[in-house]
């Protein structure tokens, strides 16, 4: 399948939009009518054809526009990309992982030609054709992590593993849900998770860390996380809160369907072979409420989840003030019928809205 790349923006005029294909494959994160934090990890070895889970690094219609947005963020704020000196080897590991995966999974879009350590990388959607020497930084325009992640959707944290912990010692973070790499750099798993409510008490982080420390080469894992974003903004960073925080007050009952977006992160975990580091790609998918409502099951379920979400979570996720307005909107799409289990829209089998 060839992908038609959208010409769109994630700022100013917000021309971002999802095609019907993108809506259908949106990673709706709720497998039941309620939500609570859990150690929700599973293997990342493919998934249903066409779904965002199928490939190691999903490429979709937003690819080229997202990469343009990333370049703009980096131009304004170079600290969004940092790598402590001992993480360069992990950067090469990551470059190799992505180049090999993408060229195998999308041969019509990406090519990797290797002759010993002489590599040639062709990225057709972005018009890149570069030859370089693997493991020789001087042959690339950026460090290896930055080079490849300027060409890959999603944020990336590269974690060093030592002392039975993970350390955020490198990363590129331009599409984040209100946290900052510059603030978290050098922190460990418990330190950077400190702001999260309820999950510590439930022992979730202790168990999640044990799982992550054991992730092995060739056996990646994944989980989903989600939040809410007003306007299709990728860069909801603390650094720019003054620009986007205020936009939350622009919601009205008339514009909420198009402005309010469910923001889902497909988080994956890969062990990196040469450095024994762990890479944590955080891929962000946005979908407006009105697009989500085209799937009757998602409409019913989203209403129930948002309605019953504990106050702590709605506050942490930053939508407590707008929750009443969201519920007014969403309740129109909840007729009280039961929903089928699982995340899939089940468009053909779930009944249409009965009101």
């Amino acid at each position: 399948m060839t992908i038609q790349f959208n010409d769109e923006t994630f700022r100013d005029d917000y021309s971002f939009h999802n095609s019907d294909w993108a809506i259908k494959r949106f990673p709706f994160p709720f497998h039941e009518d309620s939500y609570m934090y859990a150690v929700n990890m599973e293997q990342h070895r493919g998934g249903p054809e066409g779904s965002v889970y199928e490939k190691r690094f999903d490429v979709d219609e937003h690819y080229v526009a997202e990469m343009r947005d990333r370049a703009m963020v980096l131009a304004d704020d170079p600290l969004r990309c940092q790598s402590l000196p001992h993480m360069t080897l992990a950067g090469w590991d990551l470059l190799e992982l992505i180049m090999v995966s993408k060229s195998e999974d999308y041969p019509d879009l990406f090519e990797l030609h290797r002759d010993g350590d002489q590599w040639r990388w062709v990225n057709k959607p972005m018009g890149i054709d570069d030859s370089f020497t693997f493991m020789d930084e001087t042959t690339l325009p950026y460090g290896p992590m930055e080079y490849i992640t300027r060409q890959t959707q999603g944020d990336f944290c590269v974690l060093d593993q030592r002392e039975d912990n993970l350390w955020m010692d490198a990363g590129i973070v331009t599409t984040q849900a209100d946290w900052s790499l510059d603030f978290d750099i050098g922190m460990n798993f418990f330190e950077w998770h400190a702001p999260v409510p309820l999950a510590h008490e439930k022992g979730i982080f202790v168990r999640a860390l044990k799982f992550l420390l054991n992730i092995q080469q060739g056996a990646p894992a994944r989980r989903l996380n989600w939040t809410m974003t007003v306007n299709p903004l990728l860069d909801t960073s603390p650094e720019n809160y003054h620009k986007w925080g205020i936009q939350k007050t622009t919601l009205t009952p008339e514009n909420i369907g198009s402005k309010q977006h469910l923001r889902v992160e497909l988080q994956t975990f890969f062990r990196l072979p040469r450095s024994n580091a762990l890479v944590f790609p955080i891929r962000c998918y946005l979908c407006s409420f009105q697009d989500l409502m085209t799937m009757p099951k998602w409409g019913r379920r989203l209403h129930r989840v948002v309605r019953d979400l504990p106050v702590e979570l709605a506050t942490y996720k930053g939508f407590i003030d707008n929750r009443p307005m969201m519920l007014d909107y969403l309740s129109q799409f909840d007729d009280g019928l039961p929903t089928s289990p699982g995340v899939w829209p089940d468009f053909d089998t779930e009944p249409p809205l009965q009101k």
Partner: protein
Amino acid sequence: MSAAPQKAKAGAEKIEVIVKAVVPLNDLVTRFEFERRGGALFPPFSGGAHTVVEMQDGERTRLNPYSLMSDPSDRTTYAISVRRDDEGRGGSLFLHNHVKVGDVMTITFPVNLFSLDLRAKKHLFFAGGIGITPFMAMIEQLEHMNGNWELHYACRSESLGTYVDVLSYKYPNKVHVYYDDQKQAIALEDLLDGQPLGTNAYVCGPKGMIDWVHATASAAGWPDANVHSEEFLAPAPGEPFEVRLCQSDKTITVGEHESLLEAIERAGVEAPFLCRGGSCGQCETDVVSYDGDFVHRDHWLDDEEHASGKKIMPCVSRFVGKQLELDR
């Protein structure tokens, strides 16, 4: 929460290999070199990683971990060096006596529980006997990166000094060898004292040596985080005992020469594992009820957990008593 749930498999991903060379190094140690079946390259790995080798020994499947000791940048070959253990449970004997060039075997993807701290300004290695193997790969990795390292290697005798010749030839200024039978000993206190700030120490060898390095470093004021060790525990034999597996509704008997994990697997019950040596934590199993005493041998659970009677690591630990029921 599962988007597209997949059943987790026990153990790491596997690789089919062909034995490409069997090289006896001395009376006790033999190197086995593998190439990937079908001619593909091996995945890269990091120095200190091990692989679990699967051996079909008659009716029994043996799974033993060995450090990868080949150059991590050589993706055509993986190599392990195995010391024959005449008293042990037979994995090493099987390799020495039955495995020959051309055999097809299965090994796991590399797993690293003993990796280099890449922040270190200097890496100080202490090897005892066959404990040299992970350092062989670490040294090659550091050489490619211009890393700063130094090796102190204690062997029983010159004739049992596995790889002493190669190492001393290639790195005469970095390798220091000590022979027990010549009453040579590592001057550990002095060595630990004279290191530049930011040095990390690594030890692999017999348990006594590991404890000695940790204790001496600690007494000399080294932060624990800067001293790394790897000790593979081989599951020790013990009296047979009976176990009830309540999830799978089975009662099994653990034989004298098999581990609890092996007995669980023999009963056809899938149980998670990675290292099979008591250090990765993957096989951690909840105890439902018991009447007797645990023989905990792992490095994973802490003292409190060992005393609690609530958890066991079936890859190395055993049980003596009337009754044991596990959540598996």
